[in-house]
């Protein structure tokens, strides 16, 4: 351990660290643009200059290793003057277009201008003009005028995404960030450069100009794009998800997420194909009905079948709570042993970084909470076979588009009763007799277990018809707080959906079983009592970054 002094306070730090890391570990913030904890050191922005005693000149904190007896000053007059000068240089050619820049509000350059610059410009000459609105790849747009040449994106492409296509050309104030001829930034992780970019030079094609950052609320949740379960923030304005951003979790996704998860997983929540309440087949046509009617119908229809004639398919897309309530309903209330779920493995569609071949968020969790055949019961193949030969006549399927799978689609017409939970219209709902509109992952509390066995929380960010943003403790933006009946933005579209565990409990009670769950927390409490993998866990312990379930062997750290 090395003894160093920062701003007059002595610390003992690991001698392998650089000054900026040592300071950061002890809560001392040294301003920086090009340095990033996950990337190699470039040392080209000069913002992290600090005074180190016995060194003739100021040194950059990001590339100076700590040494025994080092005395660092981060706030001295010399340092502040140097910072002012660096800021002045950076701002010479930076356009004054914060009002139309998507980064405004979460921009490092903007924040540091308030904190560390002199507050006015001495530069009266014309700024250098450079290319704007360049499509770097399918998902990333570049505005070179805003670029401050920190090279974070270049290093990300080289080191993390392993697709070295970005580089600088020209010199001096004519430096331009560009892709090599004939290449584009199209790796599966390309959009991480958007958050990495300390200014608004790199913006997302999808989110571009959609909203100002201060108009949205953000909710900590988990990505449902694959079995990795990257930690994310869900950004919502006017009850609509506008973007997802990665949230740091060393055990799962480091600080990154893939473009697929970022762009595709929330489309179904905002989709126009969302169901507006339960549906029931009446004289051959699916028509809207009330919740009570649908629940009563489901219960009375299910009663008509023998135990062995009923099968249940849980879902690797649904939460642990949903799956637990479902298998309990199937096994304890209806008494069937034919319970399983469909796995969605796309062999080959994976990599050594984040992407997993399992395209569902909760395969492991579904298995652990008990969505598997009971003793002597049928598994998924046997259930399909059973439907084919007529021994299984009723199927209850949770949040999964099973009709999209050819083997299942072919036999669905043999069924006498098909009850489905789904949030959007799909082939399965079209074939169903009773459809319950279920909440998406962004509309309910719950947990998902990723492939490592890490139990992580999902939290509601979008309100459904039965919820209230203020009363139910949702994240609120300024708009949410002050909306009244005469504002158009105060009247968002709310979907009539309920979490699956709630629907299942209601059907179970209607059948005559005992299932009294009032909240997702209730369900999880029972899971933690009954299921070995979840022993002793609760929502508080899971927190924002999740905990390993008791059956997980060990954490599999990312790169």
């Amino acid at each position, binding site marked *: 351990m090395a003894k160093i002094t920062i701003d007059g306070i002595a610390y003992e730090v690991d001698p392998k660290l650089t000054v900026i890391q040592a300071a950061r570990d002890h809560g001392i913030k040294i301003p920086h643009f090009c340095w990033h904890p996950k990337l190699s050191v470039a040392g080209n922005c000069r913002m992290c200059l600090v005074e180190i005693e016995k060194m003739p000149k100021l040194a950059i904190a990001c590339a100076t290793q700590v040494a025994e007896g080092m005395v660092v000053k981060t706030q001295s007059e010399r340092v502040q003057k140097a910072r002012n000068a660096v800021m002045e240089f950076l701002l010479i050619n930076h356009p004054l277009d914060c009002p*139309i820049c998507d980064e405004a509000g979460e921009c490092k350059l903007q924040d540091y201008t308030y904190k560390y610059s002199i507050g006015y410009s001495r530069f009266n000459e014309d700024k250098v003009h450079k290319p704007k609105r360049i499509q770097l790849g399918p998902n990333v747009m570049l505005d070179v005028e805003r670029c401050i040449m920190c090279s974070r994106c270049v290093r990300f492409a080289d080191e993390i995404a392993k697709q070295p296509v970005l580089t600088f050309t020209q010199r001096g104030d004519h430096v331009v960030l560009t892709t090599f001829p004939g290449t584009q930034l199209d790796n599966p992780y390309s959009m991480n450069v958007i958050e990495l970019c300390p200014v608004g030079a790199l913006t997302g094609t999808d989110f571009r*100009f959609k909203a*100002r950052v201060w108009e949205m609320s953000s909710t900590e949740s988990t990505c449902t794009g694959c079995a990795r379960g990257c930690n994310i923030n869900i950004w919502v304005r006017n009850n609509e998800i506008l973007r997802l951003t990665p949230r740091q979790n060393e055990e799962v996704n480091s600080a990154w997420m893939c473009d697929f998860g970022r762009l595709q997983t929330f489309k179904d929540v905002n989709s126009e194909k969302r169901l507006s309440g339960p549906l029931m087949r009446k004289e051959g046509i699916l028509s809207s009905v009330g919740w009570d009617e649908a629940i009563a119908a489901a219960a009375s229809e299910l009663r008509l079948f023998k135990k062995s004639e009923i099968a249940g398919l849980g879902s690797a897309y649904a939460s642990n709570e949903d799956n637990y309530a479902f298998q309990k309903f199937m096994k304890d209330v209806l008494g069937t042993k034919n319970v399983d779920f469909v796995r969605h493995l796309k062999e080959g569609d994976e990599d050594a970084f984040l992407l997993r071949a399992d395209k569902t968020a909760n395969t492991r969790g579904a298995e652990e909470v008990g969505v598997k055949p009971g003793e002597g019961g049928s598994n998924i193949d046997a259930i399909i076979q059973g439907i084919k030969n007529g021994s299984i006549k009723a199927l209850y399927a949770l949040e999964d588009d099973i009709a999209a799978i050819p083997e299942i689609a072919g036999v669905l017409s043999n069924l006498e009763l098909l009850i489905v939970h789904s949030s959007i219209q799909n082939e399965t709902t079209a074939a169903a007799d009773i459809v319950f509109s279920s909440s998406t992952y962004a509309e309910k509390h719950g947990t998902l277990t990723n492939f490592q066995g890490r139990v992580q929380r999902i939290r509601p960010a979008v309100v459904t018809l039965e919820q209230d943003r203020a009363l139910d403790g949702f994240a609120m933006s*300024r*708009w949410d707080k002050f909306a009244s*009946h*005469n*504002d*158009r933005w105060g009247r968002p579209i709310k979907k009539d959906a309920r979490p699956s565990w709630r629907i299942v409990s209601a059907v179970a009670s209607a059948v005559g079983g005992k299932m009294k769950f009032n909240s997702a927390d209730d369900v999880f409490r029972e899971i933690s009592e009954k299921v070995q993998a979840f022993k002793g866990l609760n929502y508080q312990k899971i927190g924002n970054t999740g905990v390993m379930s008791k059956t997980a062997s060990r954490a599999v750290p990312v790169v």
Partner: protein
Amino acid sequence: MASSKKIIRKKDFSLLQRMYLPEIFRGLMTTFLQMFKPKITHQYPEVRFHPPASFRGRPVLVEEQGVERCVACGLCSRVCPALAIEVQASETDLEKERYPVKFEINMVRCIFCGFCEEVCPEEAIVMSNEYELAFSSQEEAIFGKDKLLIPAEKLKERLEFLKQNR
């Protein structure tokens, strides 16, 4: 303090004063003299008041060559103390890159403070001289781009006023 102060009343008025008449005529004189002064009463709605350039009427969007100046930055929306303004930006091929695809001011919420005008980096939203705002429903009070866009030529007075008082 005030209660302890002694009120002194003049007790012996003169005869003229006791008759009140001179004072009555003096008062009537003021009234009669008004007849020969210029009228300031307007025969509204036949005659309308034309406010000076400093007047803060309903906020409007400046239109130049058929396009709004607005770049949909949302600063007016952010600064509005009454949350009257809603802006939705979108991309345009014009040099300004973005434009408001939706711009709505809820005139029931607007308090005519002029902060939106003050914060606007493009001088795209200004306070007009229009003050006739009556609605028969809440919905009618929400002005969209169709009602807000006014050609710059019609706003010359205000734009000139803003230039002088920058």
